């Protein structure tokens, strides 16, 4: 200690001076680091003037009350059950619009289950899953879904849209790479944005384009192996594309997955409960083991006729979402009565796979019929329950085509066939599909009803297009 003091005294003065400066500087850093209030050269008076001058843009753009979308909604108000028939403005129409492929919306046994649950649990769960919002029926539904899909575990979300939109950012972070099909639905697009990862788009269902990107990535990885070691790579596709009605080439995707070591996420909102001999989706359709897919996500709002969504896969993958899935952690859980409704729907599908055969037959029948309508193109696979009817000769003006299609939809509704336009947020979509009327097929449609649908639609098309 004494030596140190001596050393201090003997040190040259410039040394002491620098040390003192250094100490002052450290103090300044420690105590006044916050003092960097953003310094402005403006005087208070100038600031006041700027504040008085500034005029913000309006919060929302001017939307008149007779905006076409608002009019279309007001003209199509539904009362009662949206089953095979739907009552629009008091008129009963054949329902070719809602995604109720198996008639689960309107199924009496599903309703009975929901009411039974209502009398035990009430409507809302009044809490997120973490805080007493987990009811035994949620666990049961997760269990049933996992068993149905032959997966280790399933996780339940309260809202279909939030399922994949939360699942993607739970795994893929900034710096990771996601390969995504250009035709993916909006929920996936939002999930991709939320992940802040690098997105590489490949052309819709174009495996060569995908492979080109994968090879590109592999080359890049070779150049920088250190970075490649921590860059996770994902491949996100839809099973049955809602915007196109076609299937993803899953066998090829799985092959590429193993070849280029990417994780495959599959969104099955439309195909779950529909494709495959037991309704297990595209994996069953192509006879591929669900173990080859890293994560399967689907909504319960279509074929199942309830609300919510789920992800399923290996336990070590799915469990991660229980702490990292934003839509899972921070949202109230699914109302129990909707969970039991989904359980009942699943049971019905499991019990009567015959309805899937009926549905497929109807899909094919309608597909071949609709192909005969003049002036239109029908987009989608014959076995797909969703079909898009587009104009064969679209004009250059998208709005005009949308209006034409809306007129056709209105006319066919007046003639008791309810159809809807596929709606998009035109500026927000990554790749905007052409305007179309979207037909969805129900397994309960009889041949006569299919004929009526065909005649009504084809008349409506002829009448409006020729005008």
């Amino acid at each position, binding site marked *: 200690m004494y030596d140190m003091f001596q050393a201090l005294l003997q040190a040259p003065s410039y040394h002491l001076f620098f040390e003192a400066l250094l100490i002052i500087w450290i103090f300044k850093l420690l105590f006044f680091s916050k003092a960097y209030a953003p310094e402005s050269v403006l005087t208070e008076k100038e600031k006041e003037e700027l504040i008085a001058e500034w005029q913000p843009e309006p919060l929302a753009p001017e939307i008149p009350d007779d905006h076409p979308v608002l009019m279309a909604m007001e003209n199509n108000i539904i009362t009662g*059950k949206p089953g095979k028939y739907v009552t629009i403005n008091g008129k009963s129409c054949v329902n070719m619009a809602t995604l109720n492929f198996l008639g689960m919306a309107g199924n009496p046994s599903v309703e009975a289950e929901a009411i039974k649950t209502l009398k035990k649990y009430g409507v809302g769960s009044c809490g997120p899953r973490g805080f007493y919002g987990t009811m035994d029926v949620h666990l049961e539904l997760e269990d049933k879904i996992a068993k149905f899909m032959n997966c280790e575990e399933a996780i339940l979300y309260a809202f279909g849209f939030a399922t994949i939109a939360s699942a993607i950012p739970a795994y893929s972070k900034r710096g990771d790479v996601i390969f995504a099909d250009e035709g993916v639905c909006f929920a996936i697009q939002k999930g991709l944005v939320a992940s802040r990862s690098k997105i590489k788009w490949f052309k819709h269902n174009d495996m060569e384009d995908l492979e080109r990107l994968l090879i590109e990535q592999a080359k890049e990885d070779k150049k920088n192996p250190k970075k490649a070691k921590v860059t996770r790579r994902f491949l996100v596709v839809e099973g049955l594309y809602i915007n196109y009605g076609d299937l993803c080439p899953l066998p090829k995707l799985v092959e590429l997955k193993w070849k280029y070591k990417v994780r495959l996420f599959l969104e099955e909102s439309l195909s779950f409960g529909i494709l495959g001999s037991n309704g297990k989706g595209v994996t069953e359709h192509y006879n591929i083991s669900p173990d080859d897919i890293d994560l399967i996500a689907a909504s319960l709002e279509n074929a199942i006729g309830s609300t919510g969504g789920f992800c399923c896969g290996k336990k070590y993958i799915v469990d991660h979402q229980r702490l990292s899935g934003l839509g899972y952690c921070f949202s109230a859980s699914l109302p129990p009565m909707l969970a039991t409704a989904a359980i009942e729907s699943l049971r019905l599908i499991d019990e009567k796979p015959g309805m899937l055969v009926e549905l497929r037959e109807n899909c094919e029948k309608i597909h071949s019929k609709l192909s005969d309508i003049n002036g239109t193109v029908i987009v989608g696979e014959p076995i797909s329950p969703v079909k898009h009817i587009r104009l064969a000769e679209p004009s250059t003006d998208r709005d005009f085509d949308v209006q034409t299609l809306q007129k056709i939809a209105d006319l066919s509704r007046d003639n008791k066939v309810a159809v809807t336009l596929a709606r998009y947020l035109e500026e927000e979509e990554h790749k905007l599909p052409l305007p179309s009327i979207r037909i969805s097929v129900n397994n309960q449609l009889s041949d006569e009803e299919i004929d009526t649908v065909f005649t009504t639609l084809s008349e409506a098309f002829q009448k409006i297009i020729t005008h």
Partner: protein
Amino acid sequence: MARDGFEVAVNGINNNYKHSNGKSNGISAYSNGHKVNGAQSKVQSTKSTPTFKEHFEQTPLGVAIWTYLGYAILVVIGQIRDFLRSIGIEKIKSCTEPKLPGFVPLFQSWESFYTRNLYRRVRDCWNRPIGSVAWAEMDILERVSYDHGWNFELTGKKQRVLNLGSYNYLGFSQNEGPCADAVEDIVNKYGVGTCASRQEMGYLDLHRNLDILVAEYLGVEDAITVPMGFATNSMNMPLLVGKGCLILSDELNHASLILGSRLSGASIRTFKHNDMEDLEEKLRFAVAEGMPRTHRPWKKILIVVEGIYSMEGSIVRLPDIIQLKKKYKAYIYLDEAHSIGALGPHGKGVVDYFGLNPKDIDVMMGTFTKSFGAVGGYLGGSKNLVNHLRVSSHSAIYSGSMPPCVIQQVISSMKIMLGKDGTNEGKQRIDTLAWNTTYFRQRLVEMGFIVYGNEHSPVVPILLFMPGKISCLSRECLKRGLGIVVVGFPATPIIESRARFCLSAAHTKEMLDKALDILDEVGDLLKLKYSRLKRQPALAESDNKELKNGTRNSSVSTFADLCTLSMKIIKTL
């Protein structure tokens, strides 16, 4: 993350912004993301509600040290066990990621360190499954874990407990009564699901009725509803602001608001929790300086706040924010997820509480999950705004519309609240909740707990601080028949673990007394009564005395500041 956690702020609503606040020491530093300030005492001329009192008592120094020490021990032991696992002495019981050759691991080991070594020990305090309606009492299904929290099994036994955890403010989470009957009718008439989005043939007359009723309830021109509360924010905020706009967001805003802000593409700046001076400073700066680098003016500025902050129990200083909004021509986005139904003489939320005009708020957002016992959310505002949302909302186009059973639950409960059912049950529920809130808070303060938040907030957090006490409190309360919510890091700042109670109109005084007795007993057992304001029940104090309280604490805080500071230095070393 900086927040006024260490302050005793006894604040009146102030309308004079030039007024300096009583910072007692000139030192301010950041420590673990906490701003440590001297106690602020902003007791000023009060305006509309003279009883706006919020307490955030300072963390006692010794407790802070012990808390950090607790975490340090946990981390060290975690590291040791990770090491033992890596060399194969300890068996790995979790479901770990298999090594796939060539694949980049999905999870990095350090990412799950906290989950594996800390959260796993106390996992039984969360996700407790229940087997009944989440009413004032509920049945918790008993779980056991044979491997120290890695896996759970249900034993099939049930335990009836008091429920202080669910967000059932008005007690509408019921399986019988007029709401449940109406819902049953509607399921028979409309079925369960709609299988379509609002714009694609999923628009029921029920949706229209609900929109109209919600607008009436809020006192705004029009409203639109969304089937999920979280998605109401995350799917609709991008429609209001975008590139070239600025979002000024309270630092404690909910994850859905943060996600919505991020998805919107607007620039985001946060201001200190409920700190109007900081907000004004940021607003002034934003308007005067414009965008960074280009200095072009911002297109719009949106202030995003919540009505009641669910982790703090604080109420937003709305009158001040409206004043600022008018002065700087910003817009206000108010998320009333917890406050709608739960605050105000008519249960109409924080606007009603302060007696303000709802038209001054540009976007009124809220959820049906909490007070109305349903699920989903709404957005209300001017006719033009709602038209815009109807046309371009992500939720109106790309997701299923709200199921009829949920709509009916909201309609029925809202009608009761508006007195449209011809009874005064709605009024009674509000009064009961208000009484329960005051009573419960007062008793907790008297017992000596550190209770956070506004005296009128039905969300009541008490501070636990030490990590070990989080699980202890939860387990001990459950043992005695009380279900509570405990939260720790990362949902709160690392030092401020807390328990949160949500009061309900369904609680009777007997229930609350029972709960309080249990908390009293467990609080003594675990030494949770940290408050040093014990002898001076704060709620009954006059402003002057509170000022004294504030200054008294401030001297302590100077010392605490130095200590935290030195700890920071130690940490950086």
